[in-house]
């Protein structure tokens, strides 16, 4: 990430103000709100995305559209129909992701237990868990100036690695679970290192090779599930053997209710975020990553080995994505993985890393937000189209990636030091 060099001149915070006028808190706060700094760009991106989402909901709904045909005769019909549609849709997302008000009522009346109230939150955390890992995998590579679009493929190999150890060894849980997790990370790391090695040795762009490797991994998964070694012995559809009891991620809130799916992988994800933070800001390796990311030529002149930095960064990133795979095959997919278990978590990791601005704490927050969107959309379907989560996610990160667009739409002022934007690079 780098900043562009345009510095504001005419609209400097102090320009054109009498020297004796003291800036009070409200004035400073107002200026902060009207400025395209990274916090406000994030806030406005979210607001704009939900606004555009609302417009699309209204435009695409047949009933609401029909009320607009007589808008000039009775505008209140159209306006109230639009308002109720948008309110109900977003409320349904909220209830599926955070807190269901109906369940709360039932709990107050004694018809639901405490676990039921927590279920939406548990689902949010469940969907957020793989996103934390894949977001870190993309974000870490961003810091080295690499665009790791291959988290999906790395995650698939992580899934397979963890699965194989998960069902083939016969060990006590204290050994089995960690071994399976490590196997997932190693499989992901090995697959992730390929684009790094190719870039280091041949100059092949990591985006192109990662796209190809993603597709290769997807077909490999279809083939692998069908092989006799992995395929379920009891079921006929494309599903693998289940992992052993000793390799399953324990549920965190299993004592409250069996349906709360959030498991140990969430804590591992947070630990991975802390590790990534430590790696990036405290270790020599992280210094090298950031140096190469800022300016590879200067780093090479300073004696850093660029090629090996690319390779190791991609391997660590692949390892993180592999952990996402392990979290899936030892967690929600423990009963056997299908071609559908991986969903789009790897691709969503890109959006998570962008919203989190490639910063571990931001990535965890972004993963929670997108996990909530996913959980909400899944629970609100079919009343609300399930893909509203993808749509909102895409609009949010489009604005994050192009802050100048937000600035232009809302007529914000340039912050001191210019907009924070992604550095543009060629192939």
């Amino acid at each position, binding site marked *: 990430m780098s900043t562009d060099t345009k510095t504001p001149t005419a609209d400097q915070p102090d320009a054109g103000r009498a020297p004796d006028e003291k800036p009070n808190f409200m004035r400073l706060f107002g200026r902060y709100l009207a400025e395209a700094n990274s916090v406000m760009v994030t806030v406005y991106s979210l607001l704009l995305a939900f606004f555009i989402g609302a417009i699309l909901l209204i435009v695409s709904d047949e009933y609401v559209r029909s009320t607009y045909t007589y808008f000039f005769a009775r505008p209140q019909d159209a306006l109230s129909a639009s308002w109720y549609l948008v309110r109900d849709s977003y409320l349904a997302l909220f209830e599926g992701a955070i807190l269901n008000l109906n369940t709360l009522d039932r709990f107050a009346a004694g018809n639901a237990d405490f676990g039921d109230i927590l279920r939406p939150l548990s689902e949010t955390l469940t969907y957020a868990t793989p996103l934390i890992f894949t977001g870190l995998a993309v974000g870490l590579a961003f810091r080295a100036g690499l665009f790791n679009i291959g988290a999906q493929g790395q995650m698939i190999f992580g899934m397979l690695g963890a699965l194989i150890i998960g069902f083939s060894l016969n060990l006590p849980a204290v050994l089995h679970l960690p071994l399976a997790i490590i196997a997932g990370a190693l499989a992901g790391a090995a697959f992730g290192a390929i684009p790094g090695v190719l870039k280091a040795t041949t100059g092949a762009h990591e985006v*192109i090779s990662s796209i190809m490797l993603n597709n290769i991994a997807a077909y490999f998964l279809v083939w692998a599930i069908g092989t006799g070694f992995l395929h379920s012995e009891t079921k006929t559809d494309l599903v693998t053997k289940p992992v052993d009891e000793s390799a399953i991620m324990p549920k965190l809130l299993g004592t409250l209710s069996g349906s709360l799916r959030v498991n140990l992988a969430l804590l591992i994800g947070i630990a991975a975020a802390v590790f990534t933070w430590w790696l990036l800001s405290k270790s020599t390796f992280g210094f090298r990553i950031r140096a190469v990311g800022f300016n590879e030529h200067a780093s090479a002149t300073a004696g850093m080995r660029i090629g090996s930095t690319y390779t190791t960064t991609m391997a660590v990133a692949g390892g993180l994505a592999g952990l996402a795979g392990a979290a899936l095959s030892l967690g929600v997919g423990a009963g056997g993985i299908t071609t559908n278990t991986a969903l789009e978590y790897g691709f969503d990791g890109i959006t998570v890393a962008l919203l989190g601005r490639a910063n571990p704490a931001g990535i965890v927050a972004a993963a929670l937000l997108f996990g909530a969107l996913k959980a909400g959309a899944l629970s609100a379907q079919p009343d609300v189209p399930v893909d*509203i989560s993808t*749509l909102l996610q895409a609009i949010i990160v489009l604005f994050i990636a192009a802050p100048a667009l937000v600035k232009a739409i809302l007529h914000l002022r340039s912050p001191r030091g210019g907009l924070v934007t992604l550095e*543009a690079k060629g192939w």
Partner: protein
Amino acid sequence: MAVDTMTPPPALADERAPARHIKAGAVYAALGLFLVVMAMAVIGADRTTTITFDQTLTDARWALPTVGAVTAFGAITAAAGAWMLLGLPQRWYKIGTAAGATAFVLGLLTWAYSQTGAVFRAESILAGALFLSLPYLFGALSGVVCERSGVINIGIEGQFLMGAFTGVLVANITGNVYAGMVGAMIAGSLSTMLLALLATKYQVNQVVVGVILNLLALGFTSFMYDQLKKAEGLNSAFSIPTLTWGPLAEIPVIGPVLFQQKILVYIGLALVFAVWFLLYRTRWGLRTRAVGEHPAAADSMGVNVNRLRFWNVTAAGLLSGFGGAWFTIANSLAFSKNMTAGLGFVALAVMIVGRWNPLGVLIGALIFGFTTQVARDLDASGGAVVPGEFLQMLPYVVTLVVVAGLIGKAKAPAADGVPYNPGDK
């Protein structure tokens, strides 16, 4: 100076001298030997490979002895590899590469079609391959126009989805399938216009934005699909007729492949030559290539770099949007979620394998279309030696090999993806 006349022009000397190609030679030799060993050890001696012309000469059947044919093809591949290892004149290198690759593919095909029940129906497969290569062709041509102008278009997949969705929607609203195709083009163009705006005016990272635009198109079309399917008759399948060119369609092989196709095939082939002509033979093409290679130089000659880029990228969306119409209209299908299934990325690969050149793109698209068709055909006949998934991986593996420079080097336009700011020359 006298010294200058002493040195011979180096380019001429290199052209004639035999050069060794160690990496490529080793790869070809290994592949050829692999085929020969497989023919000797794995393939049963009684196997035959049957070829038919299923549409014109329905009675003709040719049965080749598989072992002999595979051994021969393997030997040709290995010989090409050995020739490269020993050293060959530069102008023969391309011929050697092409011969070796063709022989290897033919060897694999002969082997794959030797299973019981598998018949190589030459005419259906070649005609199908040409039809299947169309989305790659339209997408990759769109990519060529964008990247030759210096803007990376990684969002071809998204433009496909927008085109596929809008094509059906407009066709349903207007009742006219050709209006649907125009609608698909406009939808593709609108999505590249957003990319163009962000790339030229706001100078964002084009790869990242391209990925986001793909996601946006996926989210938008899936969302709209769910919303609109509640309404009746907005997503019914439309089809276009197959054109039969009278007696020309009766010619063996050429007839079914070239003269009995849907109109998109002819549009696709015409566009290849049109884009090639425009890029290499017109003033617009020269400017476009200049803007993609060295925008500062183009600017100093009076070309408005960002304006040209903006309109080129917007126009390129017409091509990829039209490619989107292939998925629904040309296949007589209604729209379904994520129906492009990653083919937009194959189109990107075709553009790279075709070296950012419309004619190369045609060859690449045909090869990938052929691979897809063979994979489908073998899957349908059920007796594949190699699992279908591995055949479907092939385009991606080929692209990896090409970008890694194992067989030739793919080089993008110099200023591809680099935003141009007239202020900081």
